[in-house]
C-alpha cells in the first residue's frame, strides 16, 4: 500500500532524515518508533506532503506521490493526525470534525461519520459546540484523531496520539487505533513509548538520527536486547 524508498528530507539545508525505507502493507498496523528528535515526525510529514523530500520516492497504491501537494494526497486516502494536534482552535468541535471530511462530498454520509465519532469519543459529543481551543490538551487530542478519521483514509498516519493523554485514555486510544485498523484502515503509528506501540503493531521500524536502524515484527523488536537496553531502560 505504502512504499517509502530512499527518502531524504532536510530543513534549511540541515539533514533530518536520509535513506529511509518503509513499507506499510494493506490493512497492516506499522509502528515507527525512536527517541526524541530522530526524525519520526519528519518522516510522517513527508509522507503527508507537508515537507518536500530532497530525493526519494513515496509510492502509495502504486502511484508516485512525492511531488503531489499535501491537499491532493487526502483524497487518495492518506490522512495525518499531526504532532501537537493542530485542531482549529477557534472553530467548534463539530465544525472541526466536519472539516475532516472536506474531501468527501456525500453530506449524509458525513453526518453519519460525525455521529460515529461521537460514539467513539463521548466527551466530544458533550462539547460539540464548544470552541475547540478551550478544551484541555487531552480532549483536543481526541478531537484530532476523530478529525483524521473523518476523511475515511485508507492509510492513517498518527504522530504520537497518546501524547499528553491520561493513562486511562491511552489504552483507549490505542484500542481505538487497533479497532480502526481491524476495519481495514492501514495505520502508520509514530510513538515514543516503544512497548505500547510495538505491542499492537504488526511490524515496526526503529529510527535513529534520521536513519532506520532496525526493523522487524513488533514482538521481535520488543524482545531485542539492544532495544531493551537503549529504549526501555532495562
Amino acid at each position, binding site marked *: 500500500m505504502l512504499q517509502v524508498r530512499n527518502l531524504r528530507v532536510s530543513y534549511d539545508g540541515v539533514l533530518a532524515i536520509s535513506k529511509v525505507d518503509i513499507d506499510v502493507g494493506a490493512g497492516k498496523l506499522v509502528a515507527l518508533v525512536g527517541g526524541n528528535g530522530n526524525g519520526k515526525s519528519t518522516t510522517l510529514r513527508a509522507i503527508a506532503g507537508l515537507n518536500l523530500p530532497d530525493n526519494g520516492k513515496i509510492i502509495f497504491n502504486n502511484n508516485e506521490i512525492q511531488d503531489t501537494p499535501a*491537499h491532493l494526497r487526502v483524497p487518495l486516502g492518506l490522512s495525518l493526525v499531526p504532532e501537537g494536534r*493542530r485542531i*482549529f482552535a*477557534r472553530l467548534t468541535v463539530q465544525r472541526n470534525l466536519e*472539516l*475532516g471530511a472536506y*474531501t468527501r462530498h456525500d453530506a449524509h454520509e458525513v453526518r453519519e461519520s460525525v455521529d460515529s465519532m461521537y460514539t467513539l469519543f463521548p466527551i466530544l459529543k458533550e462539547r460539540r459546540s464548544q470552541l475547540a481551543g478551550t478544551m484541555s490538551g487531552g480532549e483536543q487530542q481526541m478531537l484530532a484523531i476523530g478529525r483524521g478519521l473523518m476523511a475515511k483514509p485508507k492509510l492513517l498516519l498518527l504522530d504520537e496520539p497518546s501524547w499528553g493523554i491520561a493513562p486511562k485514555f491511552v489504552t483507549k486510544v490505542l484500542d481505538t487505533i487497533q479497532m480502526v485498523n481491524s476495519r481495514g484502515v492501514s495505520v502508520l503509528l509514530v510513538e515514543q513509548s516503544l512497548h505500547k506501540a510495538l505491542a499492537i503493531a504488526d511490524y515496526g521500524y526503529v529510527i535513529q538520527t534520521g536513519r532506520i536502524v532496525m526493523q522487524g515484527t513488533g514482538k521481535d523488536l520488543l524482545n531485542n536486547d539492544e532495544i531493551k537496553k537503549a529504549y526501555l531502560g532495562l
Partner: protein
Amino acid sequence: MSEILVQTLVSGLLIGLIYALVAIGLTMIFGVMDIINFSHGEFLMFGMYSSFWLYTLYAFDPIVTLPLTALFLFGLGVIVYKLVISKITNAPMVSQIFTTFGLMLLFRGIAQFFWKPDFRTIGHTMVSGSFSVGGIQIGTPQLTAGVGAILVTAGIYLFITKTRLGAALEATAADKEAARLMGIDSQKMFALAWGIGAACAGVAGVLLSTFFPIFPDVGANFILIAFVVVNLGGFGSIVGALVAGILVGVIEVMGGFLLGPQYKLAIVLVLFLAVLMFRPQGLMGKA
C-alpha cells in the same frame, strides 16, 4: 434643532454603511491571512476607475456594471495574490506591511501614469439625486451604497458560515497546514480571500463613484477609517465590520456636528482607542 440631529444621525448611518462596505474586504483578507492590506484603498480606487471608464467610454451606468467591476476586481485580487502576496505568506508581519504598503504606492503610481492625476466624477446615474422622508433628506446614491453594504455583508456572512468553501476558508484562516491535511488547498483559499476582499472593495468603489470624486490617491481618504472599522469590529469579523462601520459613521458625523468638525476624526479615534482599552480584541473579535 431636533430635526437637524435626526438628519445628522441618518447621514452618519449612511456613510457608516459605506465604511462598513470598504472595511469588509479588508477584514476578510485579514481574517484569512493575518495580513493588513495597506493597498486596500487602492483596490477601492480601481473599482471607482473601472466604474468611471465604463461610464465614460461606453455610457454604462455604474449600477449596471457593478457585477462586472466586482468580477474584474476579484481577478485583480487573485492576480495580486499570485504574483506578490503568495510569496510573503510566511514572512514576518512587518515585511507583509512593507509589501502591501509598496503595492499601495505602486497602484497609485500606475493610476496616475495611465489616467493622470485629475479628479474625475461620474455625471448623472440611475441613482443620482435625493429624496425626503418627513423632512429628512436622503441621498439616493448613499442609500444605494448603504443597501449594497448590507447585502454584501449578509452574502459574505452566509457564504462563510453556510458553505463548504466558506468552512474551508475559515479552516485555512485558523491553521493553514492543518487545513492542508484536511485536503484543503490553502493557496486557493488565500487567493479566494484576496479575490473576495478585492471584489468587496470594487463594489464599494462602484457605489462610491456615483457620488465621490475619483482620483489616484482617493484610497488615502478611506484607508484609515477602514482600518479603524476593521479593528473596532475585531479583525476578521464580518459582522463586527458592519456594526463598527455604522458606529464610526454616526460618531464621526454626530461628533463633528456637536464638538467641531476639525476634530471629527479625532473623536472617532479616541473612542476607538477607548473601546480597545476595554475590549482589546475589538467589539466582535475573538479573544
